[in-house]
């Protein structure tokens, strides 16, 4: 066996109990770091999953990010036109069916159209401002969770009556409408029609349940006073993470503003960045504290072994070799600690993951845990590196010991 390793292991073995304490310190640090990382990332992933499920992955609206360039600007570089009011355009996505077909041709996922109109619902002389969203009941299930959110009636019931509506449950409660109630819808353009409640839904998002009513696309178009109007396409992709790329391509190809869920939820995702910074700081602190134990034992060993160090140096072992012995001892503690920490971390994850949580909207679930080898690698790397650093400080001191002083002291 290598001399350095031999001496290092002999020192460590001769102090089994102290070494075990240091190893336990590192293992605890590594174990809890793994659990914390798994828990934080697990809850983050779970939250994003819910968020992603609650909204379209990409929303293509009939807006454009920049006002259309003036023809003169396109022709002459020097031309700059100020103070122009943008020309009033016809609303809606042009050729919605063709646009949808062209997107569907390449995008891995589904597309559904919708028409959004602002209106007033009137029932029993109560007026409530409402967003009426015209949808296609055949396509809607492919892009949203609406079918699962229906509490009474069904999505297909939209076909069963003229101007059928599915109301948010809180909206229905507010105006006192029930299944089958007939009510009046009116828009600011003066269009008014009679509609019938054929279903109630509850998304769990209060603002939506308070103000949204679903109808057929056709009903929406009538309310908007524009046949063939579609002002939003919503996409659900097979891979939610591919949304920004898909959004960019759609925007490039169609010119319509396409917003990926990541862009729409930027604030939220930024909050996760803060959370991750906090997590890494805490995990780093835990492991740093664990390395104090390593520092402690290596310091103790170098003090106890001052005589042996003097002997080895007097025989002609260079400082480098002496230093390596103690750094290696610290490394052994770090590595063994990390291995035990893996076991502890895994056990903690299993234990925490089996805790049940209940929530009024969903079925019983478990605390979300993310299983990632990255957490193990990260905790181990930090633990081993901090152990090595913790060992290096006393090792350097030990290596500089002047053998004569100790040999004299013993004589």
């Amino acid at each position, binding site marked *: 066996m290598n001399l350095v390793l031999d001496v290092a292991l002999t020192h460590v073995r001769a102090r089994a109990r102290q070494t075990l304490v240091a190893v336990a310190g590192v293992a605890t640090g590594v174990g809890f770091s793994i659990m914390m990382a798994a828990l934080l990332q697990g809850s983050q992933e779970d939250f994003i999953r819910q968020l992603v499920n609650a909204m379209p992955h990409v929303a293509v609206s009939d807006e454009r990010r920049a006002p259309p360039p003036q023809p003169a600007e396109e022709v002459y570089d020097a031309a700059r036109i100020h103070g122009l009011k943008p020309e009033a355009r016809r609303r809606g996505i042009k050729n919605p069916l063709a646009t949808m077909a062209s997107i569907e041709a390449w995008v891995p996922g589904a597309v559904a159209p919708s028409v959004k109109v602002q209106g007033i619902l009137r029932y029993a002389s109560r007026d409530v401002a409402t967003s009426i969203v015209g949808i296609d009941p055949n396509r809607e299930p492919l892009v949203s969770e609406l079918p699962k959110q229906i509490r009474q009636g069904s999505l297909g019931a939209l076909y069963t009556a003229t101007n059928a509506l599915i109301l948010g449950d809180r909206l229905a409660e507010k105006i006192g409408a029930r299944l089958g109630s007939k009510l009046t819808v009116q828009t600011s353009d003066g269009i008014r029609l009679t509609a019938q409640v054929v279903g109630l839904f509850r998304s769990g998002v209060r603002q939506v349940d308070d103000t949204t009513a679903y109808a057929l696309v056709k009903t929406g178009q009538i309310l908007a006073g524009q046949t063939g109007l579609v002002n939003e396409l919503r996409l659900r992709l097979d891979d939610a993470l591919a949304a920004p790329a898909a959004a960019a391509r759609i925007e490039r190809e169609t010119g319509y503003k396409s917003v990926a869920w990541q862009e729409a939820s930027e604030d939220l995702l930024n909050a996760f960045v803060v959370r991750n910074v906090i997590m890494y700081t805490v995990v780093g602190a835990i492991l740093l504290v664990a390395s104090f134990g390593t520092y402690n034992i290596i310091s103790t060993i170098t003090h106890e072994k001052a005589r042996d160090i003097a002997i080895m140096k007097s*025989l002609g*072992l260079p400082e480098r070799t002496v230093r390596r012995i103690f750094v290696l001892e610290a490394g052994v503690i770090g590595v063994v600690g990390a291995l035990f920490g893996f076991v502890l971390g895994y056990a903690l994850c299993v234990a925490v993951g089996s805790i049940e949580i209940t929530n009024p909207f969903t079925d019983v679930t478990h605390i979300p845990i993310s299983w990632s080898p990255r957490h193990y690698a990260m905790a181990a790397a930090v633990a081993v590196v901090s152990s090595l650093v913790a060992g290096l400080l006393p090792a350097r001191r030990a290596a500089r010991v002047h053998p004569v002083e100790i040999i004299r002291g*013993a004589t």
Partner: protein
Amino acid sequence: MTVMAEGPPRETAAAGGPPLLEARGVTRVLPGIVPTTLVHDVDLIIGANELVAITGPSGSGKSSLLYLLGLLDLPTAGEVLIRGQATAAMSEEERAHTRLATLGFVFQFHFLLPEFSVLANVTLPMRALGALPPKAMRDRAMELLGALGLADHAGKRPDQLSGGQRQRVAVARALANDPPLVLADEPTGSLDSQASEQVFEILRDLVRARGKTVIAVTHDLEIARRMDRRIALMDGAVVGDTIRETS
């Protein structure tokens, strides 16, 4: 007890080439409010195959001089040369390597590593030098231990041996890398007379049979008288350098 003949044949005193060990104006002053001079302006030339005693009263600087000659300590003035090579300007690593390859130390206390077996203690300098394959290191260590009458104790820990046995293990360790020069600081100082005699004979045989040079600090005048050359120290300075007339 005799040590079996092995290694280079007896060399005759330096013919031509630089001497094995040379001290030129070596001085060691301990800094402090009142600086202490441990060794003062020592000039020495020690050749191959010499058996040298350093004598002097307690506190006369014998150990200090030996540490300087053995490159364990650095002189504040002057220079120690090994085979003509200056050592003061060497890096710590070069000096360590020179100690490992050309010097063997035996101290008053055996200074063996307590957690290692006798065999492991003897192979340690060989492993640090790394010049031999592991099997050859073991064989050489066993041979040295056998020659010093310790073959049966190779697997024991140092604390299972008597003082004389431990000191002989220390000698075996000093010889591990077959250095031309062995330095001993009162090697018999903590032994009874019988064990002292045994260790002395071993050191003498290193010179007689193995062609080594041994420099031993001793305050045992009886033993010093039986050495080939005696260097007397007083207050850190050499006050006598006598060569015994071979009878």
